[in-house]
Every structure is written in C-alpha cells, then in structure tokens.
C-alpha cells in the first residue's frame, strides 16, 4: 500500500498549481500518517487523522486501572484555562499553554528536562478580544517542526529539536476581533489553521499554509462569494445536490456576510484515501437572529474540502439561521463503522445543538441525526430528507423576537457538548462523549457592529434541566442504533477530551479536577485522581521505554470557567439549593499542570 500512496502523493504534487514543492513534502504526509499509527507516540492533536482519540496500547486494562497513579507532573507556570493536550514525538513531549502561548519541549529520556522553551512576544491587547478565556488547543507536528497558533493569530513554525523559529505568518487581525485558539493540522506539505472571533463579527476562514515557507496555499471563507468560499456551484454538493451559484450570498441581507462569523476554531480531521479535510464553522454573528435574516450559510456547517486545493466537495449546514449560538465546530470523527447495520465510511459529529450527526463522509449524505442528551428541546428532530431541524416555536429566539426572554431552551449556548473532543473505540464500536447538561434563558437584542468590539446581542442565564441537579454527563453512544448506551452523571459539565484504549478503558477529566478511568462497556468507575486544578484539557496516551502513560493538562478556565466559576443561577421553578449550584471555585483553583499516570 505504501509505495502506491506515495506515488499518489507525488502525482498530486506534480499536478498542483504551486508546483514548487520538494520531495520532502511528499514524504511528510506518509511519515506523519505512519507515525500517527504508532501507538507509542501522539503526533496529531486528535490522536490520528480520524480524530478517534483511541490508543492501541494495552498495558492499562480494566483489571489494573485501579493501580494507576501519577508518576510525574509539570507546572506550566500559566494560570488560565488549559485546553488541548501534549504531543509525544519520539523521545520528546511538547506541552503548550494558554496566552502567552508558551511551548515546552520535554526530554522523556531525562525525567522531563526542558530541552527548549518558546514564548512569543504578543500584544496583550489580544487578551480581551478572545471570546472565552485565552485558551489554546495545542500544537501540531510535521516534517521536523512544531506549529503553534498564537492568540494573535500568528502561525509559527519551530524546529522541533531546538525551538528555533523557521517561519512565522499572521493569519488575521486581532484589532478586528480575530484570534487564534485552535490546534493546527498538518496534511501533506501544508499546515491548516482556523480562526476564532464569532463574537466579534469576523468572516471565518480555514487557511492552508505551505510547510516549506509559510506561504498561503489556499484560504476558504465560511461566508461570501463562491470564489472566497472555494465552492464550485456545480460540483460542491449539499444534501445530494449542487449548491448552485451564490449559495452563501443569497442567505444574508446585504453585505452582512462580511461580519457574519462562521469562525473555524475547532478541530480538523483528514481522510488520506479521499484526500478530504473535514471541519465545522461556528455561529453567525450576531447572537441576535432578528438582526440577520436568512439561513446565514455557511455558518454552522460541516465542510469537506480537497486537501490540496481547498475546493469544497460537500457541505452540510446543521443549524440554519442559528438562534442559540450552537457553533458547529466540534470535532469530526471519521470511523468505518456500522450505521443501521451497514458498514459505512462515516463522519460522526456530536454538535453543540445536541444532535449526533452521522454522515457518509465520501459524499455528505445525512444518515442519522439523533439527540445525544434527552434534555434537548429546541428541535423535535432533524428531517433527514431536507437536513433541517424541526424547530419548536416556544424555544425559537427568532420566533419570539428580540427583547423577549425565551426561557428554558436546552441545551444552553455552550451546547450539549462544546469543543472537548469525544473518542471512538473500534473495539466496542461506541463513541465516548463528554457532555454539558445545561439549559438557558436567551434574550436577544439589537447591537451595533464596531470593529474589534464584542458583537453579541444576547444575554442569557444558564441552569440544569428542570428537576435535575447535575450539569454534565460522560456518555457512551451507539451510532448503529442511534442511542445512548450508558451515561455517567457529573456534577459539572464534562469539558475534557476523552480517550479510549484497546483494552476497554475510557478516560476523561472533570471540571472539579478528577482524572477518571471508567469501564468502556459499562461506565463503571475504575480509578480517579484529583489533579491540581479543574480539567478542560484532553487525555492523551503514549509509551516510553516500554511503559504506557496517560497524560492530561489540568488548569480550569475556558468558557467553563465563566459560567461555572460564579456558579449558575437557579431557575425560579423551585430547583432548590442543590450541590450543583455551589461555585466551582469551592472545588478548584487556577493553575496549569501536566500530570502523567501509569500503572507501574
């Protein structure tokens, strides 16, 4: 297989418009793909190109998980919310931090000694332009370089051995509200990066930079004219039909698309055989739906794009004309698995809006969209023939209008699940999903756009679903049957990326700071350890010198740190003073620490 794949990569390169790429580039793809299949390393933020977050390592099992214990720790020296997780490449581990976006290269052969540290100089004025804390979701690796997406949208390439800057480019302008929080993804000879700023009216885009020198290979916007979208009106498909001319422009009033949001701050996946990259776009700006009539395409959309050219093969908009801030940026998990009994090249996406979407990733056909939290009430279902949700008028903030407080909408704006990535276990065939179990009142109102200033236009309050007191669940979900298999209650939202092992263990972290190992079949707790701070990072696995390790960053913050630090307000419907409303700050405090576990 390998030689033919390499040949294929060569063919693509030779025919690419750029035509200036060297032989090393062709090997880079193969090399990274091969490395990602070595379970000893963790070279891609999502574990592999499929974003499955699954390890084939077998030392830690359901039988011995109770013997897990921390074996070493590392303080990042940074206080704010620590999302993402460390990479392990060979004998080195790469740990990142929120602003100021430090990167540490740790020598695993030398007790985690710091080989190099990188700290960019950034204008602190970028800090308040970041929507929800100064998070960063990690670095990417490729062709001997570490790629860091800084808060100020600078994408910098660092020599993985020395930390020396190879090149650096600015992706967008923080003065207009564009910031960098997402982890890049290396695909072939390119590094892809999205942008944040949906609360500041950016025009979201995904950009591929040539690894060689940081030059732009392609840029694809989420809204705008077809040439900016990289859409072919006749070939780009949506729900089985060509999108047609001006598919985005027709769904916005005037030139509102220019400040239309659709930020691309989530995760990116890649299918090397189809040569397609997958990612989602975020909320249309503003949060006041009355101010932007139309479907607001292609916000809230799953994109499948050619990795070489950026041209969109297919798109699917999950939440047309968003009225609740249900960003569509959550990870796209690529899994070859059974859907309704049929083996499928699936793309599985647990959306903020509370529906688990299953699409045929080859063509974008919508196969299934079921609720993965029974509390979800804003829509009764998704019509699989049109792809549109059947919105319940009572919970439609657009129907109820601006200056009206729409009450009891589930999920809340932070979604049934936010960016915290789920895991797929080929062993059980199930998806393991960290979820939020939170509802909201949402009141939109008119706002004025000012460049670089918040462009939100709604206020909201959040609380658990009626009659309940827990704010999160860790669930196992079956896409074959379209249902929840088991669900573990958590006091707070589960805001940590999950990990599954080939030995039937599932890992996640909690906002109050526990690293937990549960039985993937039953959800039964096998082990927990209270780390120094709340966990919003992702659990990763690696092996070094014959020993399997589990690594996770703790360091509470992020959007979870906004709503939860102060505690949530109770609805007036007699929810009572239950433990869940106690402020998170009575459980945990700030501070970034990496904790590494093993069973020996």
């Amino acid at each position, binding site marked *: 297989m390998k030689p033919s794949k390499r040949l294929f990569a060569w063919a693509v390169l030779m025919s690419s418009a750029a035509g200036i790429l060297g032989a090393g580039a062709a090997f880079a793809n193969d090399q990274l793909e091969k490395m990602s299949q070595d379970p000893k390393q963790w070279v891609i933020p999502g574990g592999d190109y499929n974003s499955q977050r699954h390890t084939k390592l077998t030392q830690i099992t359901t039988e011995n998980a109770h013997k897990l214990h921390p074996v070493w720790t590392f303080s990042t020296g940074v*206080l*704010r*919310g620590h999302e993402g997780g460390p990479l392990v490449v060979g004998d080195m581990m790469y740990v990142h931090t929120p*602003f*100021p976006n430090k990167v540490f290269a740790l020598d695993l052969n030398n007790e985690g000694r710091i080989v190099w540290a990188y700290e960019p100089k950034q204008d*602190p*004025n970028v*800090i*308040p*332009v970041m*929507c*929800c*804390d*100064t998070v960063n979701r990690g670095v990417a690796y490729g062709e001997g370089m570490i790629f860091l997406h800084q808060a100020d949208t600078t994408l910098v390439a660092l020599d993985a051995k020395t930390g020396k800057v190879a090149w650096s480019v600015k992706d967008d302008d923080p003065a207009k509200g564009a910031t960098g929080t997402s982890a890049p993804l290396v695909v072939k000879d390119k590094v892809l990066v999205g942008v944040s700023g949906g*609360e500041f009216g950016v025009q979201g885009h995904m950009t591929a930079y040539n690894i060689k020198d940081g030059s732009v290979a392609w840029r694809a916007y989420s809204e705008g004219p077809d040439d900016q979208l990289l859409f072919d009106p006749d070939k780009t498909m949506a729900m089985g039909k060509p999108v047609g001319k001006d598919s985005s422009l027709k769904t916005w009033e005037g030139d509102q698309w220019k400040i239309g949001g659709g930020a691309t701050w989530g995760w990116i996946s890649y299918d090397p055989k189809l040569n397609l990259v997958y990612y989602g776009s975020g909320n249309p700006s503003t949060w006041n739906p*009355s*101010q932007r*009539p139309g479907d607001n395409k292609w916000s809230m959309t799953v994109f499948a794009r050619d990795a070489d050219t950026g041209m969109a093969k297919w798109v699917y908009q999950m939440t047309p004309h968003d009225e609740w801030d249900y960003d569509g940026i959550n990870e796209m998990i690529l899994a070859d698995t059974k859907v309704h009994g049929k083996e499928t090249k699936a793309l599985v996406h647990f959306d903020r809006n509370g529906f688990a979407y299953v699409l045929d990733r080859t063509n974008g056909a919508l196969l299934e969209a079921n609720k993965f939290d029974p509390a979800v009430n804003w829509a009764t279902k998704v019509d699989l023939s049109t792809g549109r949700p059947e919105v319940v008028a009572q919970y439609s903030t657009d129907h109820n*209008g*601006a*200056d*009206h*407080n729409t009450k009891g909408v589930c999920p809340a704006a932070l979604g049934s699940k936010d960016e915290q990535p789920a895991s797929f276990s080929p062993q059980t065939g199930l998806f393991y999903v960290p979820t939020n179990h939170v509802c909201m*009142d949402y*009141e939109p*109102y*008119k*706002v*004025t756009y*000012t460049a*670089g*200033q*918040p462009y*939100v*236009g*709604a*206020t*909201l*309050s*959040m609380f658990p679903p009626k009659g309940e007191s827990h704010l999160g669940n860790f669930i196992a979900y079956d896409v074959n049957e379209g249902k929840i298999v088991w669900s573990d209650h958590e006091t707070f939202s589960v805001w940590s990326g999950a990990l599954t092992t080939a030995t039937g263990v599932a890992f996640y972290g909690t906002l109050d700071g526990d690293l937990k190992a549960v039985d993937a079949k039953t959800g039964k707790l096998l082990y927990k350890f209270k780390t120094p701070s709340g966990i919003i990072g992702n659990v990763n696995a690696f092996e070094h010198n014959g020993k399997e390790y589990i690594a996770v960053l703790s360091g*509470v*913050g992020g959007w979870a*740190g*906004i*709503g939860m*630090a*102060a*505690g*949530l*307000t*109770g609805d*007036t419907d007699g929810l009572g003073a239950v433990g869940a409303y106690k402020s998170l*700050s009575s459980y945990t405090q*700030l501070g970034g620490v990496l904790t590494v576990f093993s069973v020996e």
Partner: protein
Amino acid sequence: MRRDRPTGHPQAEHRMVGKLSGLLATTALAAALTLAAASLAAPGIARADDAPADAKPPADAKPYVVQNGRVDHHVFNGYRRYGDNCLRCHGPDGAGSSYAPALVDSLKHMTKEQFEDTVINGRQDVNTANQNVMPAFGLNPDVVENLDEIYGYLKARSDGVLGRGRPKKIGDDDDN
C-alpha cells in the same frame, strides 16, 4: 429587524458627551476617548435603548431604582448591556469568572468615576503572574451610551438590593 429602535437621541448623546468631557478634564485620557466623543457627536449612531433621558437624580441618590427586588427600565437595560459586553469575562450577574474580578465586589470600593474610566479606557495588569487585560470600550456605542445604566445595574447588585439572574421589571405582572 422587528422592534427596531429609532436612531439618534440628541438629548442622550449630549448627556454622554458632557460626561466624557468631564472625564477628560480630570484624567489623562487616551486619544481613544476623544474619538469616542467625536463619534458620539456624529449623527446616525444606532441607539441602543429607547429609554427617555430622565432628569438627573439628586447627587446623594442611588444610581438605580430597585423596589422589592424589581427594577426600572434603566437598570434592566444595564443588565442586558452587561450581558452583551461584560459577561464573557466578568461572569453572570457580575459574579466574576476564573479570570476576571467579580464586579459585585469591585464596586464596593470603586468610585463611579473609576468605573467609567476603566470601562472607557481599559486597564492592563500583565506581569509574570497575571495576564489580565480589560479592553477599552470607549469606541463601543453600545457600552458608552449605556454606561450609566450598566453601572446602575452592577451597583444594585453590589449593594445587595438585587439578586442574581434576570431582573424582574417594576409593574410587570408576568415574568417576561
């Protein structure tokens, strides 16, 4: 676009410009403020609230009207504008977040002038331990034109006369 509001409230704008001029005299303000004043004087700025500019209360009066936990439309508007521009950092109901102070506490010792100065010009506390930056809102009409009301809302919260959550309005029977 239903329930859109009229633009241009000359009286209210005059009030804000007057306040900004006062600040200019007492503090060394950045160019941003001058720009803010200039932009406020410009015609056609979309108005954020439809509240009439009431007569000024006496100097020793509270900056809010709260009766039995219910609020007037000024405080209510302050609540909403807080939600629009401040909540993402300072948390729901001014209660703070993991990275920005609880304003219900800050306003126990901060004067109104300090509050206005901070909102309009921003503030930075960046050192090895902290990376706290409050942005300058002086160019944001949704904030500047509603600053009195945002302050009134937060002061009512800080004084303990207003609880958490969406305030109920005086005279409203239903809870909308």
